[in-house]
C-alpha cells in the first residue's frame, strides 16, 4: 500500500480563509514528523562497498558473500514495530566481532529518509520559522544582529573545522594562535587582564566568573564567611540561578525611581558577609548604571567583588572599557555582541574577562605563548601551570567554531567599525523611543536609553488588551515581537533592542506598525488582538495542555515499509 497520506484536521477558521484538501495554503505547506513519513530501512546515506576488487573485505577480512558486512545479526525478535524485514538485509557474518556479546538486538525505532525527502522535510520546517534574515528581531538583551556569512565560510575551513582537540599541539598551532588573537581583542576592548575562553554559553560564563570569585575568596580564607551575593531585581534569571547553584544566598537590591541602582542602596546591603554583586551594565531596562564606579569601589572596600553581566556589551563596545569601571569579571556573549548565530537556541559561547585580582583564578585550560609557539595548559601540575586555576568547566578547550566566527567579525569591523556599531545600536534604540514616546508608555519617564528601550503596559490600561496580546498582533504584521514580561520589575514589560543592523527604513516600518497597533488598542479593536496571531503557521498554542499532559517523545509505532 505504501506510505499513507497525512491528513490534517480541517481548519476551523472563518469562511474568508477557506479550507484546502491538504491543509496546505499555497507556499505554506504542512509537514508531518519524520516518524510518520520515514521508515527504518530507508536511508539517505550510502556507504563504501566493503569489498575490494581482490575479493577480500576492504579491511582484509574475507567475507562469504557480497552483502556480508561484518554486521549485526538480529534475532527473531518481535517485529511489531515493522522492523522485521530489515533483518534479512542485515544478517551477516559475525566473525571478527569483538563486542563481547553486547550487540544491540532490539529494534531502535528510528525512521530514515532518502536525501530528497530529507531536504524537503527540513526545508518545509524552516519555512515556518522567523529569523534575523527574515526581518527585524527586536528582542531586548538578545542583540539579534546580522550574522555575517564570511563567519560561516571561515569556520568551515578544514584547518579549523577538521582538527581534533587532542591532536599533538604542534599540529594545531594555527588554532592556538587564533585563540590568542581572540583573547587580545577581548582584552583590549574590555580593558581587563585575563580571559577564560572555555565557557560554552553566557550562563556558563556567569558560572565561571562566580567560581573564580569563590576561589579568590577561599584563597583569602574568607570562603565560608562571605556567602551573600547582591543581585538587582531587574537581573536576568541566570544571575540568581548561578549564585544559588554555587551555594550563595541572594540578597536583593532595589533600583531607584530612575531605574538604576544607587551606590547608597548597595552600601545599605554591604557587610563582611558579602562575596560579590552581580550587575548588568547597561542594565536590563536599557540604562547605563551611572554609579557603577562608586559601586565597584564600595564593594572592593568591603572586600567583595563586582561581577558584570556582559549581555548588553553591544551598547558600549569600543566606547567604554568595563575594566576601567572597576569590574572584576564579565562574561561576553559572542552570539550577541560578536555576531555568531543564535542557531534557534545555541550553540553560544561565553568567554569571561577577568581583572588582575581574579586572573590567577581562571579555569583550565588556557593558551600560553612561549617564544614563537603556543601551548595549551590543561593540568594544574606541570610546567607553567597556574596553581590557583580552579579546574575545568567543560571538556576540551571551548567553542572553537564560535571563536573563528567572532574573530572574523571583529577583524571585519575593526576598532572603528565596532565603535560605530555601538553608536548605531544606541542611536537606533533612541530613534525607536523618540518615535513612539507619544503612543507607548515608559516606566522611568522619557529619557535617553542605551541600545534598548523599555516600555510598560500602562498605555494599554483600560483596553482589556495585555502585553501578550499586543505581541501576538505584532506577529500578524510580519515582525517577531520584542521581549515581553522581562525585566520583572516592570508591569507588562516590552523591551525593544533593534541593534545596529536595522536600516532607517526598516525601523520606520516597525515603528509605523507599532503606532497602528497602539492606536487600534486604544480604540478598542479587541478582535485584532484577542485572536492574534491569525496569519502565522499556527495560531496560539495550548501551553497549559502541554504542561499538564506532557507529550515529549513520539510514541506511535513506525509505519510498515511498502511490500
Amino acid at each position, binding site marked *: 500500500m505504501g506510505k499513507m497520506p497525512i491528513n490534517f484536521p480541517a481548519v476551523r477558521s472563518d469562511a474568508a480563509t477557506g479550507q484546502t484538501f491538504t491543509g496546505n495554503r499555497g507556499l505554506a505547506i504542512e509537514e508531518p514528523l519524520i516518524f510518520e513519513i520515514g521508515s527504518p530501512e530507508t536511508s539517505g546515506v550510502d556507504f563504501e562497498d566493503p569489498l575490494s576488487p581482490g575479493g577480500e573485505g576492504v579491511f582484509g577480512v574475507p567475507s562469504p558473500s557480497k552483502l556480508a558486512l561484518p554486521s549485526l545479526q538480529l534475532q527473531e525478535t518481535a517485529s511489531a514495530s515493522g522492523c522485521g524485514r530489515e533483518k534479512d538485509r542485515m544478517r551477516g557474518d559475525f566473525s571478527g566481532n569483538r563486542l563481547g556479546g553486547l550487540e544491540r538486538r532490539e529494534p531502535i525505532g528510528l525512521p530514515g529518509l532518502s536525501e530528497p525527502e530529507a531536504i524537503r522535510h527540513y526545508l518545509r520546517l524552516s519555512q515556518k520559522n522567523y529569523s534575523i534574515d527574515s526581518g527585524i528581531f527586536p528582542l531586548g538583551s538578545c542583540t539579534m544582529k546580522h550574522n555575517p556569512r564570511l563567519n560561516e565560510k571561515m569556520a568551515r575551513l578544514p584547518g579549523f573545522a577538521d582538527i581534533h582537540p587532542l591532536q599533538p599541539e604542534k599540529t594545531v598551532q594555527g588554532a592556538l594562535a587564533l585563540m590568542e588573537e581572540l583573547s587580545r581583542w577581548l582584552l583590549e576592548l574590555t580593558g581587563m587582564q585575563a580571559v577564560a575562553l572555555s565557557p560554552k554559553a553566557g550562563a556558563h560564563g556567569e558560572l565561571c566568573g562566580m567560581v573564580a570569585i569563590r576561589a579568590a575568596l577561599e584563597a583569602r580564607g574568607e570562603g565560608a564567611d562571605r556567602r551573600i551575593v547582591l543581585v538587582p531585581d531587574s537581573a536576568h534569571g541566570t544571575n540568581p540561578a548561578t549564585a544559588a547553584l554555587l551555594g550563595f544566598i541572594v540578597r536583593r537590591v532595589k533600583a531607584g525611581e530612575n531605574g538604576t541602582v544607587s551606590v547608597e542602596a548597595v552600601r545599605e546591603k554591604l557587610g563582611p558577609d558579602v562575596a560579590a554583586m552581580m550587575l548588568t551594565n547597561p542594565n536590563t531596562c536599557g540604562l547605563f548604571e551611572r554609579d557603577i564606579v562608586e559601586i565597584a569601589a564600595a564593594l572592593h572596600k568591603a572586600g567583595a567583588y563586582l561581577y558584570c553581566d556582559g549581555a548588553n556589551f553591544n551598547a558600549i563596545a569600543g566606547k567604554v572599557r568595563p575594566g576601567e569601571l572597576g569590574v572584576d569579571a564579565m562574561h561576553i556573549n559572542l552570539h550577541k555582541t560578536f555576531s555568531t548565530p543564535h542557531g534557534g537556541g545555541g550553540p553560544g559561547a561565553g568567554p569571561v574577562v577577568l581583572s588582575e585580582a581574579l586572573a590567577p583564578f581562571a579555569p583550565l585550560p588556557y593558551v600560553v605563548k612561549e617564544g614563537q609557539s603556543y601551548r595549551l595548559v590543561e593540568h594544574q601540575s606541570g610546567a607553567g601551570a597556574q596553581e590557583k586555576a580552579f579546574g575545568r568547566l567543560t571538556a576540551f578547550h571551548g567553542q572553537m567554531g564560535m571563536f573563528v566566527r567572532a574573530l572574523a567579525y571583529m577583524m571585519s569591523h575593526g576598532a572603528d567599525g565596532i565603535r560605530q556599531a555601538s553608536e548605531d545600536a544606541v542611536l537606533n534604540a533612541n530613534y525607536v523611543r523618540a518615535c513612539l514616546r507619544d503612543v507607548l508608555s515608559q516606566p522611568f519617564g522619557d529619557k535617553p536609553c542605551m541600545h534598548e528601550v523599555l516600555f510598560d503596559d500602562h498605555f494599554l490600561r483600560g483596553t482589556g488588551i495585555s502585553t501578550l496580546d499586543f505581541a501576538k498582533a505584532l506577529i500578524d504584521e510580519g515582525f517577531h515581537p520584542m521581549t515581553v*514580561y522581562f525585566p520583572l520589575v516592570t*508591569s507588562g514589560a516590552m523591551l525593544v533592542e533593534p541593534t545596529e543592523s536595522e536600516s532607517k527604513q526598516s525601523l520606520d516600518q516597525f515603528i509605523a506598525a507599532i503606532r497602528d497597533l497602539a492606536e487600534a488598542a486604544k480604540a478598542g479593536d479587541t478582535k485584532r488582538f484577542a485572536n492574534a496571531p491569525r496569519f502565522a503557521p499556527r495560531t496560539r498554542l495550548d*501551553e*497549559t495542555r502541554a*504542561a*499538564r499532559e506532557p507529550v515529549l517523545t513520539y510514541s506511535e509505532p513506525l509505519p510498515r515499509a511498502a511490500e
Partner: protein
Amino acid sequence: MAQVKYTKDHEYIIVQDGTGTVGITNYAQDKLGDVTFVEVPANGKTVKKGDAAGVVESVKAASDVYSPVSGTIVEVNTALPDKPELINQDAEGSAWLFKITLSDASELDGLMDRDAYLAYAKEQG
C-alpha cells in the same frame, strides 16, 4: 467555630478545633493562570511558620506555598497532583493543599482577616 485567616503570600488557613486547612487564595490562582502542576508536602511532616510546604506551578510561574503556622501536617490533598486544574476551579474550597495541627494558636494573631486580606490583594493590583 471556624475562623479564616490569610497571609501576605496569599495562603489561607481555616482553623477549627486546633486543625487548620491550608490552601492558596482565589486571587493567587487567578494571578498564576492555568495551574499545571501541584506538589503537596509530605504527610506527617513538622513545619515551622513560614516553611515551604508545597509548590503550585502554572505555565508562566512557580510559587512556593508557605505554611502560615507551625505544626504537624496530618493530611494532604491527594487529588491535586492528578488534577491540578482543581486549584483554578475551587482554590478556597475543595482544592485545599494540606491540613495541619497547630502547635501555637497565637501565631494566628499575626495573620489578616478576610476584609484586611481583600484590601491587601486589591492594593497588589
